[in-house]
């Protein structure tokens, strides 16, 4: 325990203690490092590579080069483009898609679900029936509709994916909020004069987060893949822009002759999802002081 110069025990703020507990979990720190490395490398790729010349331009002489040969560590694809550079550039879109889809769904789903669960009655009915309508439409179909209505492009793609996920989050949050709102510690907070906002945001949501974080990591992975499906239908990211999902789906055709075309983007998706997962687990434990210190 830290002691200040006067010999008194230093109080630790809520955020500081969460960070402290997160840092103690080696695996999650590992995940964070991997994710940060991926993100930083993707963003600063222009410093090392030339996007137009190396990631987009085709080179018919150098097709299907196997990994670790002729200066291409991940080999080349069916058009002779360097896989490594495409993965690096593809990370820009895929990581953003994964992160923002989950973030969007998390924020809006939590607000809607918390409001429905906390206030109950008419608010609950209105919000949840609206969510049910969304749930009744397959997520993919909904995303297609939204993109078709709003037009393509990254922002609309993110919105489409995010909106399609909101109802799931709202359902999960509502269920745990309904259980938590009658607990004694919430009543204690009311007795101290806390308003609804404070109760929802500082007492109820932190306690409901555990079940959400698992869902978040799942959403991230599926978002990356669903962008690929939308791209395939011509609604997402148009080729030749590199993006992990579409690299994976076009690579499928050449699976037998050049398996690295699916293995490499597959590994990239796996690695980022894995690090999201590790971070998620660590975050869940860090937010709940009852689990291991």
């Amino acid at each position, binding site marked *: 325990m830290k002691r200040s110069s006067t010999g008194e025990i230093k*109080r630790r703020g*809520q955020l500081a203690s969460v960070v402290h507990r997160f840092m103690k979990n080696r695996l999650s720190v590992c995940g964070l490092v991997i994710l940060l490395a991926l993100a930083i490398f993707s963003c600063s790729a222009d410093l090392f590579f030339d996007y137009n010349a190396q990631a987009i331009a085709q080179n018919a002489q150098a097709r299907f080069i196997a990994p670790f040969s002729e200066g291409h560590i991940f080999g080349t694809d069916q058009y002779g483009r360097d896989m490594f550079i495409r993965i690096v550039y593809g990370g820009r879109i895929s990581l953003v898609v994964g992160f923002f889809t989950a973030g969007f769904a998390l924020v809006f789903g939590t607000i809607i679900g918390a409001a429905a669960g906390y206030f109950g009655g008419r608010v609950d009915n209105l919000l949840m029936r609206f969510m049910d309508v969304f749930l009744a439409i397959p997520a993919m179909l909904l995303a297609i509709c939204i993109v078709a209505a709003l037009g393509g492009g990254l922002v609309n793609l993110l919105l489409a994916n995010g909106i399609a996920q909101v109802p799931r989050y709202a359902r999960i949050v509502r269920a745990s909020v309904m259980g938590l709102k009658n607990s004694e510690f919430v009543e204690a907070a009311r007795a101290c*004069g806390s308003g609804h906002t404070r109760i929802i945001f500082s007492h109820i949501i932190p306690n409901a987060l555990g079940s959400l974080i698992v869902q978040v990591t799942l959403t991230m992975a599926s978002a990356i893949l669903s962008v690929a499906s939308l791209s395939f239908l011509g609604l997402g990211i148009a080729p030749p822009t590199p993006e992990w999902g579409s690299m994976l789906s076009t690579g499928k055709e050449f699976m037998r002759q050049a398996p690295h075309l699916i293995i490499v983007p597959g590994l990239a998706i796996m690695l980022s999802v894995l690090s999201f997962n590790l971070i998620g687990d660590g975050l869940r434990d860090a937010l709940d002081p009852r689990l291991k210190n």
Partner: protein
Amino acid sequence: MPAPLVEVKHLKKYFKTPRGDLHAVDDVNLSINQGETLGVVGESGCGKSTLGRTILRLVPHTSGEVLFEGKNILSYDTRQMKALRQDMQMIFQDPYASLDTRFTVSQIIEEPLKICRKEMGKADREKRVKELMDTVGLAQRFVNAYPHELDGGRRQRIGVARALALNPKFIVCDEPVSALDVSIQAQILNLIMDLQEDMGLSYMFITHDLSVVKHISNNIAVLYLGQCIEHAPTEELFANPIHPYTKALLAAIPIPDPSKRSEDREIIRGEVTSPINPPQGCRFAARCPYAGDECRGKPIELKETRPGHFVACMKFF
């Protein structure tokens, strides 16, 4: 005689259920003087916790009045209520459930200050938390501890410190010791009594345990199915219980003395009847060995038998 600090007049709280109204609190009249303790006794389901929560406006009331320093607080709006929260606090039964497990000890104690004393700086708040921890006997080394790392007695001390943070005048104690071991229970009871002497607090002490209430209360109200059936100063109630239910309650307590075994004592039959649409008349009549026709059909009023001793019974008064 000075006006009482808290006065409850004809307070009713009904919950709507699919089978009809649940009469949790039904026409209860009570008063608590400055610096005194009112013990509220009854079995589970008699509405004693709902009564405490309705008085603090943690649940909305159905009808009636609660006067605090002469003003009816049930008509207060949100802003007035927030100001009033500083004067009325609550200590909860379950020291496990009433503390948010994600907050440290100091964060829990600090919370009411953050909400109601916005003008206080961080350093002042920290100082106050330290003071409070000293007052309730929590060592400073626990500032960063989480509730789950502490034992039941220490957790209940956190609950007491939180209730004291805003210097309240009146505290509702809802079974504050019933989840604790006997040796710890005694520590917390002593603490609650010491605080009353030092700060002139008034308590409403809700419990099912008559032996605890005898120690701590000036007056006792016995509740049965939402109604107050007997109300008297503590000594008077224990010396001369009049209502058959009060007598049964007293007789049912196992006494730690084998020479007073209850072989010859009367055990009351049956169980508490449903509080949903209860019949008119005495609600204890279904279990009462003395009940007659006059006990049923019409409401029974509390009447004063001796100065300060009120009873609602047709047979014995």
